[in-house]
């Protein structure tokens, strides 16, 4: 890109600046398959227009698909959309919509390790794409809740059937949502926070 003048880099709008009193940030990861509504959910609750951080990964770096002996290295750009919610004058919450494939996760240091917890966004039309994501979170011990994004043309299963199909233990909260709606997405985040709070209470 053109970096001839730093004046040309558009920064945030003045009203999007964080106050100077902001001392700490926390993050929540929203994870799910392609097209499941992660960015929609981030956008519906974010106080700023969702932004995108990118990272490139090379075949040499992590062994993606074989390039059949091609001389040139292939590079994939992985994008992650995120938004922001100011909690207090000191604390800010960031929401990251993350691709479901684990091979992308390490591109951003501590993406899950540093997060308070995760929301697994599920589409009943393609339930199986979330299987691996949920398994990875279980293996890493990342606390998560499952939000079923309500697509009008998606098959409707009773929540108990979905819990059984996803093989979720009793304590893991499940909630239906409409990722396009701020109140609904907010409720999903509240469900996660109450779950994290109950874990904290139990271990206190």
């Amino acid at each position, binding site marked *: *890109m053109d*970096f001839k003048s*730093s004046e040309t*880099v*558009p*920064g*945030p709008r003045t009203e999007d*600046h*964080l*106050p*100077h009193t*902001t*001392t700490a*940030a*926390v993050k929540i990861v929203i994870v799910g398959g392609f097209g499941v509504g992660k960015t929609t959910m981030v956008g519906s*609750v974010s106080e700023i227009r969702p932004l995108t*951080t990118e*990272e*490139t*990964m*090379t075949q*040499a*770096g992590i062994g993606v698909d074989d390039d059949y002996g091609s001389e040139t*290295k292939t*590079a994939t750009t992985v994008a992650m959309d*995120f938004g*922001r*919610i100011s*909690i207090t004058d000191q604390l*800010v*919450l*960031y929401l*990251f919509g993350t691709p479901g494939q684990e091979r992308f*996760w*390490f*591109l951003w*240091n*501590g*993406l899950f*390790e540093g997060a308070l*917890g995760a929301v697994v966004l599920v589409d009943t039309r393609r339930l199986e794409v979330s*299987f691996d994501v*949920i*398994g990875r979170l*279980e*293996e*890493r011990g*990342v606390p998560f809740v499952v939000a079923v994004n309500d697509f009008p043309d998606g098959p409707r*299963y009773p929540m108990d059937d979905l819990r059984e*199909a*996803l093989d979720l233990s009793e304590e893991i909260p499940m909630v239906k949502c409409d990722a396009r709606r*701020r109140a609904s997405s*907010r409720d999903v*985040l*509240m469900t996660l*926070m109450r779950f*994290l709070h109950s*874990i*904290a*209470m139990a271990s206190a």
Partner: protein
Amino acid sequence: MSPPQRRRRTPRAAPRQEKPAPPPDGGNGQVPTRDPERLYVVTGQTGDGDRAELDLVTLIVTCADAPPSAQPEQSALLRLCRAPMSVAEVSAYLHLPFSVVTVLLTELLTAELVQARAPVVRAELPDRSLLEAVMHGLQKL
């Protein structure tokens, strides 16, 4: 019709460490970007040098003016961070990969031109008051 069926997994005995982000040159001197030469200049030639521990939500605040010797990217970064800004936002506004931003920031931190405010991470939990603050903030949405 019944949905497809998953099988539950258990936590690994030792939580697997996140691998560090690969150096932007892929470790082999080949820069995989749309503008390879520029990123090579931006990140310097010490591809394996130590990088500051920076999270996506580490907050960066500028604490000094850009010296005349600063690269354009560094000047832009210093301008952006006059108000606190996360590393993720810096990456987004500068249109630079996260790993490149961490290299830029490492230099600026070493030169004490910026300060980093570390994020609150789960390892430091349980901090119920923090969780309650977030819940209270969400309720106001």
